[in-house]
């Protein structure tokens, strides 16, 4: 058993080690950055020279100078209580000014979310891939769409999306409202032309009344459809977990092993560099070295090397019930996930500089999994709505 003071001591020591590691890393990376800058400047110069008489080449680019190392003040070791405060649950759900919460909108959105009539075949709904029974995923390696055809990526959980910045594994949508209409119309997913869907919903008397109540000035249209679904999705928030009780001061809420795992998560494991904050994600994009041909974020940012094979960092709430893991469901268990990070995955130019062999001990790996297990709640059952006819 590790006493509270020991946990604090280990935390201080590990943060110190991590800072040394980052400084070491910085020196090497500065040299690489300089080489990249020279290469980039050369490339820009080449384009500049080559532009004469060749209108198809993009003219101009910013000039990147050499990278210098600047001294940073060493970060003071963070007290355990200060660190824990960073994981405190927020007091309210944020709703955007352009689509504020109303109970009528959320109620309509819930019905639409669970309604299979949103698909061309009338056999699949949003909830088919984002089921409350699987912590708002589907428990499959990759999603299954129209005609039971497998998709290329795992269905992400929609839990805590109210706090998200970008949506989909490659971050191609910047709002839940934009995102909501994508799978409905996608040929591989619900395969439903939006005009046809609006005609279908307009033929349901109950929906006319619900849209009129939720959007008295706008009525039924693709925008209000998306607004309603997005509003409902923002209400899907992970329940209190044992970890939350510990954060709020109940020392006995999680085992000592999990407390040690929390320290490793924030230091030697480097997990919190990306899985940070109460929902355990900063929405960042990283190539974590998973074997896959999927370009990921590079579909949106093909010019940026580090975006190849990069995917959005998922939150970790309810994580025990959300396997299999990774963007392609290629890792079955949390133990294997920890093993992947300890090994560092495939070393390639796009791999995040935060990913690499960690040198975790067997005990540290067990502690990490014990900690991750405390992030899962005893979720209350979600009622399936009665759908309008």
């Amino acid at each position, binding site marked *: 058993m590790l006493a509270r003071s020991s946990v604090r001591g280990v935390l201080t020591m590990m943060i110190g080690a991590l800072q040394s590691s*980052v400084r070491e890393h910085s020196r090497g990376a500065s040299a690489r*950055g300089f080489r990249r800058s020279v290469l980039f400047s050369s490339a820009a110069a080449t384009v500049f020279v080559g532009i004469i008489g060749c209108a198809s080449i993009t003219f101009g680019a*910013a*000039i990147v100078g050499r990278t210098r190392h600047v001294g940073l003040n060493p970060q003071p070791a963070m007290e355990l209580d200060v660190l824990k405060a960073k994981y405190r649950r927020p007091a309210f759900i944020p709703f955007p000014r352009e689509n504020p919460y109303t109970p009528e909108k959320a109620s309509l959105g819930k019905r639409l979310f669970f309604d299979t009539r949103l698909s061309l075949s009338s056999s699949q709904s949003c909830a088919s891939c984002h089921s409350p029974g699987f912590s708002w995923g589907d428990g499959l390696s990759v999603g299954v769409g129209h005609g039971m055809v497998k998709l290329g990526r795992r269905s992400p959980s929609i839990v805590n999306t109210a706090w998200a910045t970008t949506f989909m594994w490659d971050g191609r949508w910047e709002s839940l409202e934009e995102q909501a209409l994508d799978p409905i119309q996608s040929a591989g997913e619900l395969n439903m032309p939006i005009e046809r869907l609006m005609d279908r919903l307009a033929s349901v008397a109950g929906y006319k009344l619900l849209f009129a109540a939720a959007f008295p000035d706008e009525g039924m249209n693709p925008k209000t459809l998306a607004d309603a679904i997005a509003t409902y999705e923002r209400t899907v928030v992970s329940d209190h977990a044992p970890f939350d009780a510990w954060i709020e001061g109940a020392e006995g809420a999680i085992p000592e092993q999990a407390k040690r795992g929390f320290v490793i998560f924030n230091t030697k494991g480097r997990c919190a560099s990306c899985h940070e904050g109460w929902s355990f994600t900063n929405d960042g994009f990283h190539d974590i070295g998973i074997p896959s041909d999927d370009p990921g974020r590079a579909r949106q*940012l093909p010019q*940026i090397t580090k975006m190849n094979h990069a995917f959005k960092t998922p939150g970790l709430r309810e994580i025990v019930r959300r396997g299999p893991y990774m963007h392609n469901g290629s890792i079955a268990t949390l133990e294997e996930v920890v093993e992947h990070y300890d090994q560092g995955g495939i070393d390639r130019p796009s791999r995040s500089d935060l990913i690499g062999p960690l040198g975790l001990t067997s005990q540290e790996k067990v502690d990490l999994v014990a900690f991750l297990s405390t992030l899962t709640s005893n979720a209350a059952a979600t009622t399936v709505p009665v759908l309008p006819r």
Partner: protein
Amino acid sequence: MPRLALVALSIAGVALGALSAVALVADHTVHQQGRKFSFQSAIIKKGTPLTFVNDDTVPHNVASTTKGNEFDLGSQPPGASTDVTFTEAGEVQVICAIHPRMRMMVSVRD
């Protein structure tokens, strides 16, 4: 609080804001800390280098895909400082490719 004090505070706030903008022009440096750029927008003269310093605890990847001023600093580790010189006048969207909340606009003037 007396109304006069509030007015004085407001004027001080506006002045401080103006000074921040001037400070940027003076040292041409954008810091990255706490997964944020130190400025949401900046004005710079074409051909004058703008320095991006990563004084955060994690790598950043400052970049722009704005036509005419494209660049990619790649993974910039904590403690690294890199100059970027914009060659075309106009509005340039600068991002951290890793952290989508990090965005700023650079207005490049002739």
